[in-house]
């Protein structure tokens, strides 16, 4: 996941602009990645996922890009809206789960949409 610090990275964008949120993942052998959105006071919500055999995947207003060379994942949100304000974090799945089938989570980025 991301390099964890005491404070979340923040990103402020104007309503209607595109947003790009980045994540550096830790395991070069991870084969599956997920982006989550977490609004204040709520549980993480699945947004989009991508497998390691892909470098791009598009959803509704969101696109995930995967660069395995530099272990980097990005989430692009088109035409950002006030309802997009939230913390966004990535998760990675190592190739061999073991019995836990555990994901590794980044600490996230706080996205604020300005009017």
């Amino acid at each position, binding site marked *: 996941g991301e390099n964890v610090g005491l404070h979340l990275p923040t990103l402020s964008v104007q309503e209607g602009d595109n947003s790009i949120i980045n994540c550096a993942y830790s395991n070069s052998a991870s084969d599956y990645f997920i982006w989550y959105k977490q609004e204040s006071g709520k549980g993480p*919500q699945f947004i989009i*996922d991508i497998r390691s055999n892909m470098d791009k995947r598009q959803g509704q207003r969101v696109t995930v890009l995967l660069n395995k060379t530099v272990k980097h994942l990005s989430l692009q949100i088109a035409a950002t809206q006030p309802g997009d304000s939230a913390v966004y*974090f990535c998760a990675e799945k190592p190739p061999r789960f073991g019995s*836990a089938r555990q994901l590794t989570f980044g*600490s996230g980025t706080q996205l604020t949409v300005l009017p």
Partner: protein
Amino acid sequence: DAGITQSPRHKVTETGTPVTLRCHQTENHRYMYWYRQDPGHGLRLIHYSYGVKDTDKGEVSDGYSVSRSKTEDFLLTLESATSSQTSVYFCAISIAVGASETQYFGPGTRLLVL
């Protein structure tokens, strides 16, 4: 929300008291997880379950125990709550679609230990 509910949603308790949090799912998922979320940290796994009466420890299991006597319920117990266990606790289930494995989360329980 994958049919996940957590109870209570908020709790205030005193140091040294036992606390039990409940996670309930309605879709018969085999894998269930308990995480805690604290400022500056990503979600950290406390315990997980891979079936009825089958549980194991995660990375931050000290001071916590779990039980799963029914598929639909996964209980997290703080044997003797400490202030360091003040946190937001999330339950999750895992859904596999082919080789993709996605976790879906409940709404969380905010716990304050005084």
